[in-house]
């Protein structure tokens, strides 16, 4: 870096240099100072949804395939959201194979008391490449959010290199319940060329609007994070906070217990352990306890959990089986996730795969759930508290 001619250094007197230094210091602090107004929104707390289950409701259990006519070789990672009018919207990725260039995000809707509409391709790889002005190898892991005005948001990943670890998160919005989508925007959430930030489980609505979306890293380590999507000037701003570091516990599900308290359930990638992990927050998701064994097995597969209208927690998970994901079971916790009791088996068949459960609780207190079945199907299950009680009592076990 040497050269022939040196530019003259400034020769200010000591007082002038001091003044300049002070001015530089204040200028450097400007972005921090300007953020103080937005900072009042950080960690506002979880919104506990109001649920009004019908008294003495009969047992309700319904199970259906929502993409029965699909001829695609792979359909996986389904997501579900309840709109303000009570209708449902589901999305998943499907194509010729996981990570294949023809994988797109498919969306379908369900009016109250109606049937699922024909799924349609909502987001294709070509569309994402056009909107982001860059090359994309494949798409995956959609997660839907809906605000109180009925605007639907779709978070999904696009892979720029390699496999899932080379993915980054994007968002797009729909004003008409998923029929049309606006321009796709990339969220920059990671310092290492924005690699690896993936959503999987339901977002939690925040007090004052916005969401805490459980996401995870799988680039160098495997660990859970929270994506904070918060309203600002008519749009949304995004930031990420860490739930835990490490190399094994990831794909978090966040279940709010109160405004400040929540349980986190995690998938376990540690082959010699294979136990679902659990952690808690007491400060609205800003900090989390160290993950510990939840007492349920986890053969490195996705878990999901919700808080029922009566305060119990309900978890959907893959139990022990000769193959890795040959069953899909439900377990209930009455002590905020410390202990779990198996209550029902939703699916079980040797040699088949049932995985990636995604559950929500509707305003009517019913549990609504989507999951992957046999690699090609997306199934929907709906049941109420009366059905869970029956299962817990062993009446239909």
């Amino acid at each position, binding site marked *: *870096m*040497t*050269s*022939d*001619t*040196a*530019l003259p*250094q*400034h020769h200010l007197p000591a007082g002038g*240099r001091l003044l*300049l*230094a*002070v001015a*530089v*210091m*204040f*200028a*450097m*602090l*400007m*972005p*921090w100072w*300007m*953020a*103080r107004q*937005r*900072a009042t*929104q*950080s*960690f506002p707390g979880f919104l506990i949804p109001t649920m009004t289950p019908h008294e003495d409701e009969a047992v309700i259990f319904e199970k259906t395939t929502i993409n029965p006519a699909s001829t695609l070789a792979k359909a996986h990672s389904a997501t579900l959201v309840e709109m303000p009018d009570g209708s449902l919207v589901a999305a998943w990725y499907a194509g010729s194979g996981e990570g294949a260039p023809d994988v797109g995000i498919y969306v379908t809707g369900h009016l109250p008391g109606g049937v699922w509409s024909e799924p349609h391709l909502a987001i294709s790889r070509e569309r994402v490449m056009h*909107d*982001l*002005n*860059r*090359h994309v190898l494949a798409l995956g892991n959609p997660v839907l959010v809906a605000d109180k005005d009925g605007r639907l948001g779709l978070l999904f990943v696009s892979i*720029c*290199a390699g496999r899932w670890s080379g993915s980054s998160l994007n968002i797009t919005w729909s004003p008409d319940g998923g029929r049309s989508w606006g321009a796709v925007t*990339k969220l*920059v959430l*990671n*310092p*290492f*060329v*924005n690699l690896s930030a993936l959503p999987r489980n339901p977002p939690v609505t925040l007090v004052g609007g916005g969401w805490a979306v459980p996401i995870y890293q799988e*680039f160098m*380590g495997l*660990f859970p*994070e929270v994506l*904070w999507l918060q309203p600002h000037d008519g749009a949304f*701003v995004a*930031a*990420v*906070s*860490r739930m*835990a*570091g*490490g*190399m094994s516990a990831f794909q978090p599900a966040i279940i709010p217990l109160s405004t400040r308290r929540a349980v986190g359930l995690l998938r376990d990638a540690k082959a010699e352990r294979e136990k679902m992990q659990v952690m808690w927050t007491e400060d609205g998701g800003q900090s*989390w306890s*160290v993950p510990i064994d939840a007492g349920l097995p986890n053969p490195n597969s996705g878990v999901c959990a919700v808080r029922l209208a009566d305060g119990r927690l309900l978890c959907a998970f893959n139990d022990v089986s000769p193959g890795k994901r040959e069953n899909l079971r439900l377990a209930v916790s009455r002590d905020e996730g410390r202990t779990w009791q198996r209550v029902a088996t939703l699916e079980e068949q040797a040699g088949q795969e049932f995985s990636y459960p995604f559950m929500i609780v509707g305003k009517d207190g019913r549990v609504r759930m989507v999951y992957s079945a046999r690699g090609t199907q997306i199934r929907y299950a709906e049941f109420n508290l009366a059905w869970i009680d029956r299962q817990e009592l062993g009446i239909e076990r």
Partner: protein
Amino acid sequence: MKDTVFYWSAFTPLLLLTWVFQHIPGLRRWWGLAAATMLAVLVTGVVLLPWMPAPLPWWSASLSADFSIVMAALMLIAILQRASGCTFLTRCEWQTAWIFGACAAVVLYSSAFGVGPQNFDAYALGWPWLFWRESLWLFGSCALVAAFLTWRGNRFGYLLLLAVAAHIGRFQESENFWDYIVDPLYAAVSLMAVFWILGSRVFRRASSRP
């Protein structure tokens, strides 16, 4: 994607390419200011022309649209220094740049990979609206470093000021302040330079002993 972000994603890789060409033995005499201007024109053409259906920024943005302002400025200065023969940054100022980059890299990337306290992520401090109090450590440290360097007459401090200005103007795709001051390329070069500086000092000290 804003146009500025689109073209910015190609800026640093092209600067890197230019710097590499400048250091090819035998080509040095072609690197006067006139040649640098011609190169800038050529580079603009390359950026706009399609390379296998799309222009170059389309490909570079696929990997990263967020090369740091500091790295781009350092590379531009290195190219101009070599082309013009002027010293825009002295040896001491270059060393400051490497030390700053190495320190930022160690703090940022170790926690980004999940190392360190379980709830701590240095990258989150770059979003002051999320962790307002805690982010004062990042912004305060950079402000103190920049102020100290300015007071000492070290011009590297102005590059930090440039990064802050770009952050306020949302010049990059990222909203995180870290992405304006450090990137993996700057981190790697800085770490190598610091090891080189330390290694050569140790070697000099050892060889000067009787």
